[in-house]
C-alpha cells in the first residue's frame, strides 16, 4: 500500500515537472521570439584560415551583394583557368597565333611542304583542376594548325602512337586513299598523306575511325588553312577552334572552350591594337551539340564562310556553325577597352566558351 502511494506520488511529481518544463519553454520562446525575428539567417559555418577558393564565379556581370562571402577578403571567388593543358604543351595563348608552316623540301624536283602529326593519349587540364584523358594530335586538343598555300603539294607524315587505331581525315579535295577513312592506321604504324592543297580556305581535319563520336570527343581534330596564292591583306591572324569536353563520358559536354581550356581568354584576355585588322580562322569541332556560335561584342565583322571566297558574304556580330562548319572573320575595333566574345548560346558561354579582347591604343 505504501509502495503504491509512493508510485502515485512519483507520477504526480513527474506530471508537475513536465508542466513546469513546458511552461518554461513557452515563456522562453516568447522572450526569444523578438530577438530571433529579424535574424532569418542560418548561422554561418565557422570560417577557418583554410578557406579555399574553388571554381570560377563569373568575372563580369555578377556582384554578390548580401552574400556572407562579403566577410571574406575576396568577394568573388575565382580560380584562374590553367595556363596550359599540361606543362609540356603549348598554351592556348600561343596556340592562338601559332601556325605550323611545316618544312618545305625538294622531293625529286617537286616542292613539297611536309608536316608531322602523331596521335597519342595525354591527360590534359580542360578547366581549372579538371583533368581529361584525351587522345591528341601532338599532345594538345585541338591539334596543331597546319598552314600551306593553294596548289602546293602537302605531305603529312602520320604516326599512331596510341593503343587505338586512328586515321586523319582532311576536308578539301584529294584522292580517295588520302581521305583517311578506309586506311585505318593500327597502333605503332604510320601513314603518309600526300595531296595537292586545294581549294584555298579553312578546313578541319579529324580522326575518322569508328566510333567516330568517341574519336572526336576525345580530341582528335585540328585546323588546316590553305592560303590563296595571292595572300589576303595583312592582318593580325588567330585561329579559334570551338569544342566541348565530356569529362564524365555521359554523352554530353560539361565544358565548352575555344582552343581547349574553359574560360581561358576570360582569365588571359587577348590584347589587340586599336584599329588593327584582326582575322580569325574559326572552326567548330564541338561534339554532341548540333551547333555552336560566335558572338562579338560592341563590333561587327565580315564573314567569309569556309574562307573559300575573297568576298565576304555577311556583315554581322553573330555567326552560327554546325558540327564541322567553319569560316573566316575580319574586324577591327573602333573603341579601346575590354570586349567580350562568346557563344551566343548562353549555356555554352556559362560553361567556359567565353573570352575577352583587350583593345589598347
Amino acid at each position, binding site marked *: 500500500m505504501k509502495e503504491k502511494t509512493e508510485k502515485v506520488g512519483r507520477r504526480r511529481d513527474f506530471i508537475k515537472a*513536465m508542466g513546469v518544463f*513546458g511552461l518554461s*519553454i*513557452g515563456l*522562453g*520562446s516568447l522572450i*526569444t*521570439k523578438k530577438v*530571433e525575428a529579424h*535574424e*532569418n*539567417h*542560418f*548561422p*554561418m*559555418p565557422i*570560417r*577557418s584560415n*583554410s*578557406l*579555399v*577558393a*574553388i*571554381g*570560377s*564565379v*563569373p568575372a563580369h556581370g*555578377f556582384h*554578390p*551583394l*548580401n*552574400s*556572407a*562571402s562579403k566577410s*571574406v577578403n575576396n*568577394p*568573388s*571567388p*575565382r*580560380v584562374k583557368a590553367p595556363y596550359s593543358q599540361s606543362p609540356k604543351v603549348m598554351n592556348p595563348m600561343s596556340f592562338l597565333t601559332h601556325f605550323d608552316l611545316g618544312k618545305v623540301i625538294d622531293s625529286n624536283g617537286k616542292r613539297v611542304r611536309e608536316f608531322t602529326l602523331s596521335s597519342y593519349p595525354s591527360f590534359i587540364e580542360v*578547366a*581549372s*583542376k*579538371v*583533368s*581529361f584523358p584525351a587522345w591528341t594530335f601532338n599532345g594538345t586538343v585541338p591539334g596543331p594548325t597546319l598552314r600551306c598555300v593553294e596548289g602546293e603539294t602537302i605531305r603529312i607524315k602520320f604516326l599512331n602512337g596510341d593503343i587505338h587505331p586512328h586515321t586523319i581525315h582532311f576536308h578539301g579535295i584529294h584522292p580517295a586513299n588520302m581521305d583517311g577513312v578506309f586506311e585505318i592506321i593500327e597502333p605503332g604504324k604510320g601513314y603518309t598523306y600526300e595531296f595537292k592543297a586545294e581549294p584555298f580556305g579553312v578546313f578541319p581535319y579529324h580522326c575518322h575511325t569508328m566510333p567516330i563520336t568517341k574519336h572526336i570527343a576525345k580530341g582528335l581534330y585540328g585546323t588546316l588553312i590553305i592560303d590563296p596564292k595571292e595572300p589576303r591583306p595583312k592582318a593580325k591572324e588567330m585561329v579559334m577552334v570551338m569544342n566541348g569536353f565530356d*569529362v*564524365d*563520358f*555521359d554523352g554530353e559536354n*560539361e*565544358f565548352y572552350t575555344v582552343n581547349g581550356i*574553359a*574560360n581561358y581568354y576570360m582569365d588571359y584576355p587577348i590584347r589587340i591594337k586599336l584599329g588593327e585588322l584582326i582575322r580569325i580562322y574559326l572552326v567548330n569541332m564541338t561534339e554532341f551539340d548540333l551547333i555552336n556560335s560566335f558572338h562579338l561584342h560592341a563590333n561587327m565583322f565580315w564573314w567569309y564562310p569556309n574562307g573559300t571566297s575573297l568576298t565576304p558574304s555577311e556583315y554581322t556580330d553573330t555567326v552560327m556553325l554546325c558540327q564541322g562548319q567553319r569560316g573566316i572573320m575580319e574586324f577591327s575595333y573602333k573603341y579601346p577597352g575590354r570586349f567580350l566574345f562568346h557563344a551566343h548560346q548562353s*549555356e555554352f558561354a*556559362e*560553361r*567556359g566558351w567565353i573570352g575577352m579582347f583587350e583593345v589598347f591604343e
Partner: protein
Amino acid sequence: MKRAISKENHKWLRIISSLIPLILLFLVVYLIATGFAIQAPTTTLPIERINIERIVLNPEELVVTLLNSGPNDVEVAQVLVNDAIWGGFIEPSNVIPRLGRAILTIPYPWVEGEPLTLTIITSNGFKFKKEIEAAILTPPFTFEQAYTYILIGVYVGIIPVFLGEGWFPFLRGISSRWFRFLLSFTAGMLIF
C-alpha cells in the same frame, strides 16, 4: 563407477563438439580478414563518390555540406549551379579525405520558389548532382520551433502512454486469455 566416467566423458565431448564449429568460424574469419582465402579484385580506375548532404539557402548564398563516401580521397575541382560554371569557398580543403566532410559556400543570387541544381565536378571528371525542387530560405533555428517539436514529442510519445495507463483498471478485470491476446496483439503491432 565405469558408467559414471563415461557420462563424464560424454559431457566433455559435447562441450568440445560445440566449440569446434566456433573455432573453425574464427579461422575462416581470420583467413578472410588477412586476405589469404580471397584476393579482393583491385582496379587502377579511380572510384569517387561525393554525397551532397545538405544545402542551406541563405540570402544570396548557398552553404553546402559534402561527404566523401568513396574509397579514395577526392579533389573537388568545379562547381556548377543551374548548369553554369560557378564557384565559392570550400573549407577546410578542396581535397576531401575518405569519409571526410567539407563545407562549400557559394555566393549565388538564387530565385525563391524556382528549382536549383548543384553539380560538383571532381578532378577526375566525376559529376555529382543535387536538385532542389523549389528554393526557399532555410528556416533558422528558433526556440519557438524547438517548442513545436517538443510538443509533437509530447503528443506522440508521452500522452499515448498516459492514455494507455488509464486502461489498466479495465485490463485487470478481463480474463487471462483476453489479456494474453491483447498483449500479443500489442507486441505484434510494435514489431510491425
